[in-house]
């Protein structure tokens, strides 16, 4: 009897333990500790020792609200991995995700997201635990800090999504974080610029029969990106099925008609002969180590790798990034964006909003952008100059619109100088050097959907696309060596078995004595 009582007591205590633990969430100074669960891409935020934006946000949060915050940070490597988790409700505790365009669309379609526009209305100006008023300076609207061109491109594609019972705009659900293009990262020692211009997307198929790069090409192990490259290749080399030649890039990369998939399967199967393999994470390292010479890459990864590829002896970078161009010299292919979304199930929505607001601040955006190599979705005007809420550049007192009198965003410039992207003003004849923002690889100039397309969700057709992708990855070549080896082995085993059986049968057995 007594034993049982003790047992029961221990059991109850064990069950209550988490409850106690939850009550005890205070830091050393007795302030409450909030939690924020972030689910982001790998290598997608400044996590360096000196300028970590996660640490900076913790300090900012403490200063603003008086509470401490504990950030639980986890990562994913492809949109599909993340989608599989979220759509199967395996990520209920997540407060912030950073998916790409078409993945956000899919999440919206499945009613997984909370409207950030509504949340801003709810929390902007609300009172914080320490009595202060919350001001989301960089998040009055979801697109507040985004370039108008870029915002319009998103609106053009995603402003009227039919999510079942109503028509919604993605603008209410996403705050753009990073953007970029899909292109070719190449080694300058083995691929010339003339070749790139001549063969364009065909480089990934080694159309130029360059012996140096044969089997030294990597492509993305991700169906959407590889399909995009295949489509662009078919467009460039007139391999598109009949009736599809006149379609825009935007339509083509989102087309899932069976003829298109079959055609893509064919060119991707042919591509197997020329490439070294498929990757999503080690491409930039292999490029830097010169194990491969061509890689289908996202602009940010490419720019990061180029920075790393500085060769002191020659005072040059041995890697380059090229987005294939059409005959008018316009970049072609895919333009993508990733942005912060807040899942419906999030239980720390205020902290999540504050995080987005913080990262949307140009002074922080520049650190993330420099560290990871991607192009921040914060507009260039805001990065370079002080702006008002609507994005108009502010000028020194008594001036308006004349060159040279803009108020420079000193925080951003300081970050550029610290990372050696610009010279300090004193060392640069008193001028500001904003060449960081003029790089065409970093900031693609044309947002024209006839040449650069945004990815939309494949919807019901994604299984067909995956099937195509699997077929292409498997290839068509029959592994005859393997088959013959196996046949030989099985044959040998059979022969041994038969000999053994025959021998057993013929063996003289000792007679049984009854």
């Amino acid at each position, binding site marked *: 009897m007594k034993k049982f009582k003790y047992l029961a007591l221990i059991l109850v205590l064990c069950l209550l333990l988490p409850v106690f633990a939850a009550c005890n969430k205070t830091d050393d100074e007795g302030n409450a500790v909030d939690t924020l669960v972030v689910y982001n891409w790998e290598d997608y935020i400044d996590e360096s020792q000196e300028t970590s934006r996660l640490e900076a946000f913790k300090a900012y949060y403490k200063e603003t609200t008086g509470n401490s915050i504990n950030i639980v940070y986890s990562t994913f490597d492809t949109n599909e991995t993340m989608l599989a988790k979220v759509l199967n409700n395996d990520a209920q505790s997540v407060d912030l995700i950073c998916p790409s365009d078409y993945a956000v669309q899919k999440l919206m379609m499945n009613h997984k997201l909370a409207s950030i526009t509504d949340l801003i209305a709810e929390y902007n100006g609300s009172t914080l635990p320490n009595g202060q008023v919350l001001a989301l300076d960089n998040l009055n609207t979801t697109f507040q800090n985004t370039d108008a061109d870029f915002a319009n491109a998103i609106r053009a594609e995603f402003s009227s999504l039919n999510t079942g019972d109503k028509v919604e705009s993605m603008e209410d659900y996403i705050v753009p974080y990073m953007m970029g293009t899909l292109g070719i990262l190449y080694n300058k020692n083995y691929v010339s610029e003339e070749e790139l211009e001549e063969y364009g997307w065909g480089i990934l198929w080694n159309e130029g029969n360059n012996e140096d790069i044969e089997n030294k090409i990597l492509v993305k192990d991700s169906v959407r990106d590889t399909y995009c490259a295949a489509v662009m290749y078919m467009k460039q080399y007139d391999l598109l099925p009949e009736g599809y030649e006149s379609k825009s890039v935007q339509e083509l990369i989102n087309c899932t008609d069976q003829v298109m998939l079959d055609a893509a399967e064919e060119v991707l199967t042919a591509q197997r002969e020329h490439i070294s393999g498929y990757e999503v994470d080690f491409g930039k390292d292999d490029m830097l180590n010169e194990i491969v010479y061509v890689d289908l890459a996202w602009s940010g990864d490419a720019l990061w790798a180029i920075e790393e590829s500085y060769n002191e002896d020659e005072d040059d970078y041995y890697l380059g990034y090229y987005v294939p161009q059409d005959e008018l010299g316009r970049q072609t292919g895919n333009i993508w964006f990733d942005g912060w979304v807040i899942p419906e199930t999030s239980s720390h929505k205020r902290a999540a909003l504050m995080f987005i607001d913080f990262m949307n601040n140009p002074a922080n955006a520049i650190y993330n952008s420099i560290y990871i190599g991607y192009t921040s979705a914060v507009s260039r005007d805001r990065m370079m100059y002080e702006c008002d809420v609507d994005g108009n550049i502010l000028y020194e007192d008594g001036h308006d619109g004349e060159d040279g009198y803009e108020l420079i965003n000193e925080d951003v410039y300081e970050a550029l100088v610290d990372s050696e992207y610009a010279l300090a003003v004193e060392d640069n004849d008193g001028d500001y050097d904003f060449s960081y923002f003029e790089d065409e690889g970093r900031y693609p100039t044309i947002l024209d959907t006839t040449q650069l397309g945004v990815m939309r969700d494949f919807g019901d057709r994604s299984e067909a696309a995956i099937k195509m992708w699997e*077929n292409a990855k498997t290839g068509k070549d029959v592994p005859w060596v393997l088959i013959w080896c196996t046949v030989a082995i099985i044959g040998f085993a059979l022969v041994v078995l038969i000999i053994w059986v025959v021998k057993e049968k013929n063996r003289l057995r000792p007679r049984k004595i009854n």
Partner: protein
Amino acid sequence: MAKSLTKKFKMTKRVFSYPYILFMLLFVVVPLVMILVYAFLDNDHQFTLSNFQTFFTSRSSLYVLGNSLFVGVITTVICLLIGYPAAYFLSKSKSGGKVMVLLFILPMWVNFLIRTLATKEIFMAMNVELGMGTVLFGMVYNYLPFMILPLHTVISGIDKSYTEAARDLGADDMTTFFKVILPMSVSGILSGITMVFIPTISTFAISQLLSNGKIFLFGDSIELKFSQDMYGVGSVMSLVMLVFVLVSSFIMNRYNKNKNVGRTLW
């Protein structure tokens, strides 16, 4: 109420098995049942048989399965060819044997992913082109200990008096080996084959890493299905895998019973 409960609750030997039973239920039976259920559900959680149709009508799925079986058979045979002599000499040598066994087991203490990545780096440094050859090497390298260990245990467990008796009756080395040691180590060979064959047809990391994703095996295919949110088809493929496991262990068990030699390991 409490009294009757305590009376019924007796500290017998059985009580100690409860944690294991619970563990088995949670981590073996429940996942298997979930796979079975998922195989019959579509994305909206409605009953369907289309997952089976998708798998059995897809050229690449069957192609990949065949490919994996070939790779599995070849890996197993190579492992056996290397593993048997190794195990035989290990169990024959007296003092050095223990150290050698340790050397064979040592790599198993390193995580197999790290081992495989290291292998890849070596191939890269040697300028070996990644492909089927490197994948087979990686498979053999990773699964060789699984072949040697059961063989070693069985062979070293054979009573020496058998070989001595064979010698007394005039058998030479070859005959002793083929007539005495080989037949007596069949159980070890069989468990070694199971230990190698089953994991090789289902691995995905080794083939992915050692061929840059160009060699696409059954395990890779299942992984792709689950990461692309196609749980249904992925479950069907896991079931197919399970059938292979069951069939091979059934065959192995039958052989073992006939031989009447208990398996000493696994």
